[in-house]
């Protein structure tokens, strides 16, 4: 018998080298480059001082962020962000699994969770400020108070939707409670959990920025607001650029982790599509 292993062969495009270069470089980099050039040209010919050219912004970026500001403003922000995200993931998955496993608990909490999820996360900032004062803990709590909901709710849904045949298999082989959690419930819920984490990441980033704009004397959000109030336009743009980079980096990191964790899931989807 031969292995039926399905291989998703990369379709070889039997075209010339020129085409491959076009696909490899021009497609991903062509439009961004074009846009930068247009922006650059437009900014030199325009008198609008709110839109400096890309070169001015890059220059400001280098001067503003590379140096002590990185240690004083950027690192603490990122640290709080990481802490908030980690806590949200742990709390969200743990509580979500518990609630998902017990139907009575789910029914007890459903209207409450439905309400808490509907609260726009940033309005929790003043509440948490009131309860905890303006501290670093408060900023982390703010991030958790917003980012935990998508993770929690998606985990509940994922845990609840464990396939019936898979559960019966576990029953019939008398798998222990712990093994069931580790090898059935959590992996089965992992696609939903990852969806929740991705949503949570964006919420966390937003809350990091706003909590600092709102109540801080340091940090990325504070700096950007400060530049704006003092009409340091290029510096402000460089801050927006930096936040964009943080967002892209966060999304990319998540993408890498997600592909690892859900390798089986994407594998199945590719097999089904083939």
């Amino acid at each position, binding site marked *: 018998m031969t292995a039926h292993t399905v291989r998703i062969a990369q379709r070889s495009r039997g075209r010339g080298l020129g085409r491959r270069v076009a696909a490899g470089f021009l*497609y991903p980099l062509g439009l961004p480059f074009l846009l930068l050039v247009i922006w650059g040209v437009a900014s030199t010919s325009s008198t609008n001082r709110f839109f400096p050219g890309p070169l001015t912004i890059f220059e400001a970026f280098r001067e503003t962020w590379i140096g002590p500001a990185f240690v004083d403003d950027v690192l603490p922000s990122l640290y709080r962000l990481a802490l908030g995200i980690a806590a949200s993931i742990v709390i969200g998955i743990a509580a979500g699994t518990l609630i998902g496993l017990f139907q009575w608990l789910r029914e007890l909490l*459903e209207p409450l969770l439905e309400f808490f*999820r*509907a609260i726009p996360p940033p*309005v929790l900032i003043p509440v948490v400020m*009131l309860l905890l004062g303006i501290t670093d803990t408060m900023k982390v709590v703010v991030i958790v108070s917003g980012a935990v909901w998508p993770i929690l709710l998606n985990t509940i849904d994922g845990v609840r939707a464990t396939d019936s045949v898979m559960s019966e298999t576990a029953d019939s082989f008398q798998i222990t409670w712990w093994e069931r959690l580790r090898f059935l419930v959590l992996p089965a819920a992992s696609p939903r959990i990852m969806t929740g984490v991705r949503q949570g990441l964006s919420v966390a980033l937003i809350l990091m920025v*706003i909590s600092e704009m709102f109540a801080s004397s340091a940090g990325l959000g504070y700096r950007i607001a400060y530049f704006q109030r003092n009409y340091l336009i290029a510096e402000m*743009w460089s801050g927006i650029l930096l936040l964009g980079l943080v*967002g892209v980096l966060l999304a990319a990191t998540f993408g890498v982790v997600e592909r690892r964790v859900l390798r089986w899931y994407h594998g199945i989807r590719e097999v089904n599509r083939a």
Partner: protein
Amino acid sequence: MHVLSLRRPRSLRKVMLGVVGLTGFLVVWQLVPTLGLINSQYLPYVTDVFARLAEEFRDLAFWRRLGYTMTSWAIGLAVATAAAVVLGTIVGLVPFLRRATHTVVEFLRPIPSVALIPLAVLLFGIQMQAALLIIIYASFWQVFVQVIYGVADVDAVARDTARSFGLTRRERLSYLVLPTALPYLMTGVRLAAAVALILAITAEMVIGNPGLGRMIELSRSAGDAVGLYAFVVVTGLLGLVVNLVFRFIERRSLSWHQSVRGEEVL
């Protein structure tokens, strides 16, 4: 053999448990300041908050502020949806554009919309346009991405069938692409509606244009804890209504569609 048993008793039990959960939460909230666990200056009595809510609901000024918030929400959502549908359809249907815009989309989309708040303030001050800029930026991506998925999701067999029967491009668009993309669009609009509300209120809090968000910020800076909590509850109720309405609309447009898709918010 179907095991559809005990439907009615179960849904009754569900409602009962839900009510118990809600009441329990309110009782705990009332007890925490009563027992002095947290000073009522920081966590006011739930009875006070509800009394304040009743008071606000009778106040015309409250409804005017609610109107401001919902106006910027509605305009932002409408503009973002319209732009995203047009651009998403074009980009989704033309493979060249899809590949050329990929990097730009992947870079712009994760930029947190609140990063644009300083820019919005510079450009528009505390007018509604400042809030709109942020609302539109954030909700645009929700719809745009879904429309691209939807347009690209047309079933290969269905497309070949349409071709073999000689349907024109126009017919294919209205009988094949549109129905396939519609449920995706609805999902996108539902997500965008939630995001638009979040940013409408956030913008009012941070920028200071009139609306519910500004009331939250004013209550906080005035040390009016009761008002602050009351307005937070209002925004939660508002979010709940928006979620329920758009979920209902989405479910109606999704009724024939079996697939469940992942969601992204913000």
